[in-house]
């Protein structure tokens, strides 16, 4: 009786969040899935077309471009944000002085509006009016580098749209790792130091393994953040020229709100969800496999053989 009452009490407090989750997340996903199976233009009848939109996606070179662009952002994000977050957090945690200063400075870009940042960088990289090319010229680069139109050059524009976004959110991963590093027992570092371990060795042998659980969280945040990225390319280049700086979310927006292809755009939206889920599942499986007892024993045996 008491157990039932406790459960009812818990359910009562969980209910509002669950209702909001169902109303704002689950129902829109189901509706988007429904729209993705139609050729709806936002007005008039919804004609059911089955998987036609999904088949069209894989034949659409613009969609393939946006998927590749999203993966470029993801790879840069994983490499840069993970490494900066981990290394930066480790180094800052070792500081005796200036810890709070570095913590604030590295986190500062994250709190600035993404729209303002994107506008700033679009002016910064502007070949006609921005300072970036002038800086390159002052550094001695010739016209072939310092005279390039980075935002209009379809071969490189994606990097110039991705890098500011990666830079802005590096601070977020840094803060997460900093909190995690501070929870690593200091005695581990002290005893390693007494044994003569260098900072690099302490980082790779103590910090990195200890941060594995939090790295799972950070990786999932980076995956989901990169795959739904929209604001930077939209403000800097509206995803152009063509689709060369568009991510999947930009394509979704253009198809739905610019072209009026609600059905096709919904299929793009669902593909973002499916790809995110697949990547997260793959990562979790790989992570679990790496962390499993069997694999840990294998690695320990290899280390002993090396010694």
């Amino acid at each position, binding site marked *: 009786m008491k157990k039932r009452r406790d459960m009812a*009490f818990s359910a009562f407090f969980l209910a509002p969040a669950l209702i909001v989750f169902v109303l704002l997340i689950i129902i829109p996903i189901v509706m988007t899935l429904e729209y993705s199976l139609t050729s709806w233009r*936002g007005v008039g009848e919804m004609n059911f077309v089955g998987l036609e939109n999904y088949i069209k996606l894989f034949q659409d070179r613009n969609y393939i471009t946006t998927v590749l662009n999203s993966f470029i952002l993801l790879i840069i994000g994983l490499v840069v944000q993970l490494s900066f977050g981990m290394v930066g957090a480790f180094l800052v945690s070792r500081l005796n002085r200036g810890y709070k200063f570095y913590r604030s400075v590295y986190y500062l870009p994250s709190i600035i509006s993404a729209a303002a940042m994107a506008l700033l960088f679009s002016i910064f990289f502007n*070949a006609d009016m921005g300072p970036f090319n002038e800086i390159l010229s002052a550094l001695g680069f010739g016209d072939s580098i310092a005279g390039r139109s980075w935002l*209009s050059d379809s071969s490189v524009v994606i990097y110039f749209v991705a890098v500011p976004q990666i830079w802005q959110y590096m601070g977020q991963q840094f803060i997460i790792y900093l909190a995690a590093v501070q929870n690593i027992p200091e005695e581990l570092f002290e005893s390693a130091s007494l044994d003569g371990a260098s900072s690099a060795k302490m980082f790779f042998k103590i910090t990195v393994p200890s941060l594995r659980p939090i790295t799972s969280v950070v990786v999932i945040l980076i995956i989901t953040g990169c795959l739904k990225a929209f604001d930077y390319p939209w403000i800097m280049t509206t995803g*152009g*020229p*063509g689709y060369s700086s568009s991510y999947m979310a930009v394509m979704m927006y253009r198809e739905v709100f610019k*072209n*009026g292809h609600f059905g096709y755009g919904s299929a793009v939206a669902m593909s973002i969800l499916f790809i995110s889920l697949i990547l997260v599942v793959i990562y979790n499986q790989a992570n679990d496999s790496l962390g499993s007892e069997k694999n840990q024993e294998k690695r320990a045996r290899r280390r002993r053989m090396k010694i």
Partner: protein
Amino acid sequence: MKSNKRWLKWICLGLACGMALSGCSGNGDDSTDSQGGSGNLPVIRFATNYMAGTEQFHSDFSEMVEAYAASVKDKYTVEFESESGDNLRDKIKTDLAADNLPDCFHYWTAGSVKDMVDNNLLLDIDEYFAVSKNLSRDNYPESSLGVYTFDGKTYGFPIEGSSNYMLYNKEIFDEKGLTPPTNMDELLEVSKALSADGIVPLAVGSSAGNPAHFWYAAVFYQYYTQEESNTICGEQDKWLGEDNIVKTGNLIEQMRDAGTFPADTLGSGDFAPAVSMYNEEKAAMIYAFPWVIQQFTDEIVEKSEFMDVPVMPDAKYSTSDFVVGGTNFGFVVNAKSFHDESKQAALVDFVDYLLGDEVNQLVAESGRWAVKIQEYDESKLNPLYVRAQEYLDGREERVHLWSNMPAAASQEVFSYAMDELWAGSATVDQINQDIQDSINSDLS
């Protein structure tokens, strides 16, 4: 101890309920509701992009219309839904999908409203004129009404024309010992000379097609009449096979390669950056439009002269005989709202005011090409606007291609194709194929 825990649970429960209920209480003032309507007064939802922006026009329009709404607050309530520039299109598309169109709204013409017309969402304005005390069909030129006319019925009130004009900075040309180009060869020569000195010859970039697609039309119409353009844009499989369309693309490529346009065509695209570049004398020429007239500084207007678009090789039609433009913006009424007897009178009163002489005079004063037939107080009109009207007087109007596209999707594909053409990221053949595919798709 147990009873204390039980009391604590009930107190927490009570607090939670109290907080939840206090969050739900009251009607929550709608931030767009200027009047705080009450009782059974009809509510008119009005969406516009005339109230959002940094121009004097935006604040003057807001002040004027809000004052009127306040004066009629005992009869009906006006809810303003404001978006800036092209964002209004996105907003209306969202409202459309949610079956929640405003009662009346500013909107673009022709292909932009096709879907709404096909689904009987917009009012036939002849029904409106039948009940309006202040407006009639005679207030609008038939050519302007044509952009909202489908199968003999007209579904919108035209407000703005988009007559394009070209300016050059006389001072820059005099300093460099150059004369404004009159043909393609001279344009390429002048471009090379100016860009060698770090001056952008022509401030026409392309960001989501703006303002590039207007310049593209200025070249295109040297080879095609309006009727031919209507056929090419309005029928399947007409765009791709046209030699002069390929020629138009190739000419743009030549201009691009000669440095005629800003180097960063995307970064320096769109209307405001182009005007800014021209105002700061970083560009020697500009291809401009009525809605940017207020953005030119007095200093640059003093130094500027009008010129015709340079004549292209083998052009059939002289650029001094036509002007690219056409009515591209206006006002539409939700048919369902009009037929709602409880709000028809209020809607008619408000729309009569919005389209009346006083508001239209303000539109004209902002430099926008007001198409309504009425007496305008010319002493209050922007001097550059007056000069432009004089310069372009008597020229045949050719509707710019974006407006001529059959529906929203092909309009967008055409716009983004211009980005690619200007940036050189796609070939002319690829661009033309994309445009043809989208026209065919919209017409199927």
